[in-house]
């Protein structure tokens, strides 16, 4: 292994390229893609909920009393 290694710039293949290379049926591509999308939907809502909590922490909503 050379002492200093020059690394090629990263490149993310398009889904068409990967589908062609991996030779997975269209149906299976869709199923796995749906699984991935589901993960991201959950992650995005969790992130948004986290941001909302962080923004509103320690504050009382406008129309609520402290007793709420």
């Amino acid at each position, binding site marked *: *292994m*050379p002492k200093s*290694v020059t*690394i*090629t*710039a*990263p*490149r*993310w*293949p398009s*889904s068409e390229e*990967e*589908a062609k290379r*991996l*030779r*997975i049926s269209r149906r*299976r*591509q869709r199923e*796995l*893609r749906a*699984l*991935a*999308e589901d*993960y*991201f939907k959950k*992650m*995005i809502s969790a*992130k*948004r909920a986290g941001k909302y909590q962080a923004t509103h922490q320690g504050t009382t909503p406008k129309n609520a009393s402290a007793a709420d």
Partner: protein
Amino acid sequence: MPPPQTDPNSVFLNIPYDEEFRSLYVAYIVGLYRLGYTPHLATEIPGGTRRLDRILALIQSCRYSIHDLSRVELTSAPLSTPRFNMPLELGMTIAWTHLNPDLHTWFVWEASRDRIERSASDLKGTDANIHQNTVQGVLSEIRSVFWHKDAPSVQEMTKMHGFVESGLQSYILPRAGTNDAFAPGVFRELCWLTSSLTELSAYSRRRV
């Protein structure tokens, strides 16, 4: 003879195909995809010619290779035999790189530094990547080797790893009717799932 066509973002993974290595295997796939590189395994090449010839052709077509020697050990008794496949493929790669230094770069990965000093002292002077047999170790080493300014955090990749591993267990393996995570079809589906997640993660980063 003209040099073989090399994909500049492909990485040949010389890793042990055993159940105990499954988590780290998934970590290699997730880490490489997330950083913009494509993993390749010897199992993905179709049969026909001699296995060693196929492996050499795959090494030659990849710009990089990672040789994980962390499980070079004796198999269990009574036929306890050293596992030579990984060092053999590393040897082939070193020879290929020696003849064609511009076409290939190889990396040696180990669980701990003292193991490599004992098992392959000829590699003295080689900066091995030490993963300590942990998912975070593999992801962190991949990140440091293939680092670029948009590299995701190890924490982010660890989360994705957890999801891909559970998808493998509950979704990919049952359909494939096997428990072998290294089977060619399973490897391809793992790659597709991870590549989809990587694509979506770039999209979600812009949205959130």
